[in-house]
């Protein structure tokens, strides 16, 4: 177990990362009228060789955070350290040498590969851009990569359209591996694939991690997949980190009401468990990140919200009895065995009303 205090174990450290996207109005003289607070003060560390799962609903900022970590756009504020180097204020050209150490695998294996280019040249791109190998040598390296990810190297000259979804995702993996990176950010790498193909790609990612000593940040909305691949899991809600813990702590004793709701909402492929448990069903949708609620951002949907939640923003801290690595940003964390209120009764009520009133 790595000691979180030892800096050499930490590959990437993010301190108070903020990313706001401006909203502009006006035709000739654009002025800023507000901003989408996509990521609003997130601190996080990723340790060498681990898989950090990142979960949350659509629009909670997980993909934006991933792109911040890779410095794919400038940060609004915050500090980002990768492998001992401060990346937060580097320009594009200054960033280039560090890009070799960090790569990304995208969700959509159809949209992330140029359909008019041959697979060999797609995978060889990173090698060309970083002047690592040319000509026959590049071809040799690309074919070795194709072999590693389970593609037939003879298919070097084919187009992406000639491959199935799972094979295309392998092409994406090969491209990410080309520069022997230390960190790979996987943004929903399997959610576009069929179940049986998903498992093939997950196994591949696990094998490569062992073989090349990779560190993953794994974004997914399927909590079962995240539980399977991750060592630690971070839960985001509306631009904030609400809970971070070792995978078993998070799944066994979730402390934040949002984590509880998310876990209870995820479907499990077991008919007994799926039907027996109490679901905490959150009402409504995620509030707008343009005008997030004051205090705790989850309070508008939280079954435990009190007056304090509206005035004071909770900080990430470890609860009594929890392991120090298990931190929660909540004033009233959920205790062991505590039950949160469900919304089911209101639904049934509405159904009865419908049946009484609707003409047949």
């Amino acid at each position, binding site marked *: 177990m790595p000691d979180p205090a030892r800096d050499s174990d930490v590959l990437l450290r993010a301190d108070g990362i903020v990313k706001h996207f401006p909203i502009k109005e006006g035709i000739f003289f654009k002025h800023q009228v507000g901003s989408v607070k996509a990521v609003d003060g997130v601190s996080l560390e990723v340790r060498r060789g681990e898989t950090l799962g990142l979960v949350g609903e659509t629009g909670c900022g997980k993909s934006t955070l991933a792109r911040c970590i890779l410095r794919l756009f400038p940060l609004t504020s915050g500090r980002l350290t990768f492998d001992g180097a401060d990346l937060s204020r580097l320009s594009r050209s200054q960033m280039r040498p560090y890009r070799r150490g960090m790569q990304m695998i995208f969700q959509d294996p159809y949209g992330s590969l140029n359909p008019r280019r041959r697979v060999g040249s797609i995978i060889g791109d990173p090698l060309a851009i970083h002047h690592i190998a040319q000509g026959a040598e590049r071809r040799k390296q690309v074919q070795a990569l194709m072999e590693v990810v389970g593609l037939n190297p003879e298919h070097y000259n084919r187009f992406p359209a000639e491959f199935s979804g799972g094979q295309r995702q392998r092409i994406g993996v090969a491209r990410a591996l080309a520069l022997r990176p230390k960190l790979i950010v996987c943004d929903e790498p399997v959610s576009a694939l069929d179940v049986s193909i998903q498992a093939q790609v997950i196994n591949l990612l696990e094998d490569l991690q062992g073989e090349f000593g990779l560190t993953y940040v794994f974004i997914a909305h399927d909590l079962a997949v995240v539980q*399977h691949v991750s060592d630690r899991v971070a839960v985001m809600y509306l631009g904030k980190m609400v809970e971070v813990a070792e995978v078993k702590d998070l799944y066994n004793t979730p402390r934040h009401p949002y984590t509880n709701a998310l876990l209870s909402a995820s479907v499990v492929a077991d008919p007994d468990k799926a039907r027996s448990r109490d679901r905490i069903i959150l009402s409504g949708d995620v509030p707008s990140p343009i005008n997030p609620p004051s205090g705790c951002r989850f309070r508008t949907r939280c079954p435990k919200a009190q007056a304090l939640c509206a005035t004071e923003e909770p900080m990430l801290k470890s609860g009594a009895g929890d392991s120090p690595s298990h931190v929660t940003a909540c004033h009233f964390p959920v205790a062991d065995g505590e039950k949160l209120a469900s919304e*089911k009764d209101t639904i049934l009520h509405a159904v009865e009303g419908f049946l009484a009133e609707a003409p047949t």
Partner: protein
Amino acid sequence: MTLLAVDNLTVSFPTADGVVRAVRGLSFSVDSGKTLGVVGESGSGKSVSALTMLGLNPGADITGSARLNDRELLTMSDQELRKIRGAEIAMIFQDPLSSLHPHFRVGWQIAEAIRAHSSVSKRAAMSQVVELLRLVNIPQPERRVEAYPHELSGGMRQRVMIAMALALKPKLLIADEPTTALDATVQAQLMELLVDLQHEVGMAMIIITHDLGVIASVADEVLVMYAGRAAERADARTLFFMPHHPYTRGLLGSVPSATGVVGSRLLPIVGTPPSLIRLPSGCGFHPRCPFAMEMCIDEQPNLELIPAGPNHTSACWLPPDMTGVGIAMDTARQRYASTRRGARSAKLPGVVAAAEGAAVYA
């Protein structure tokens, strides 16, 4: 009581490349008030069979029969079918944005469905719409009837689709991947809503999905489809705990939580689903099957009774008593481990794929 009985349904599409045989001799039935889950990979014929029943597959060659309350759907005229669609069989599609017309207000679109089937005034129809939107838990329904589809979130749009489907209180609701495009929390809200509505209204449901978690939480009976045929059919518990068909076991082995021990390796099915134009001989699953025998290549198995559960049937040549996830998993795991090491050291072409393939299904 049997509401819908599909018998020996065959659907094929003539194309320039050859005949796509999307559904091949599919039979199943749905009882009123029950939920049938249909699972399978992309291209297994799940959606095509549902669309065929509603006459929504123009250009397809269709044989067999599909009877709703003893009325044959497949030979019905368009006019007759129009009376059935919406009123007796309603459908919810995967992508609510492309199923709603972007130019019309959602309230108007739901009211249109009501007015097409019953002679009510515009005003009466609209007040029904408000009630329906309230029923599917849309906040401030009086205001939302005026909204255009793009003004609503994905979950809200799908609620509108559900409201539209329920507007005429159908006897059968077909939901084709109703929650696939949505977040887990919204998915839970909607599944809960569908199940509650079903119990109250007493309709039957067919839920088409590739998500075994959805099946586990709502289905009474499950039909597993592969390459246009039924691979296995059983009640939900039997299917998850005593599966017979190797494809069902493969699906269960591919899902993280169902493999049992968290952290153990997943056991995917090797390879990819076959082309529906050039189908394998015999059992369509044999090229990917770990248990394939000589006869699987030669002869196509039909659904036979399996003693593991009531009405449990499986189309596989394996002995009927060979059920359960465990046995298959252990053998597969051992084979996997041994072959994988071999393939790694030998550095054969396509190491991983070959290893995964040869291994699990040597």
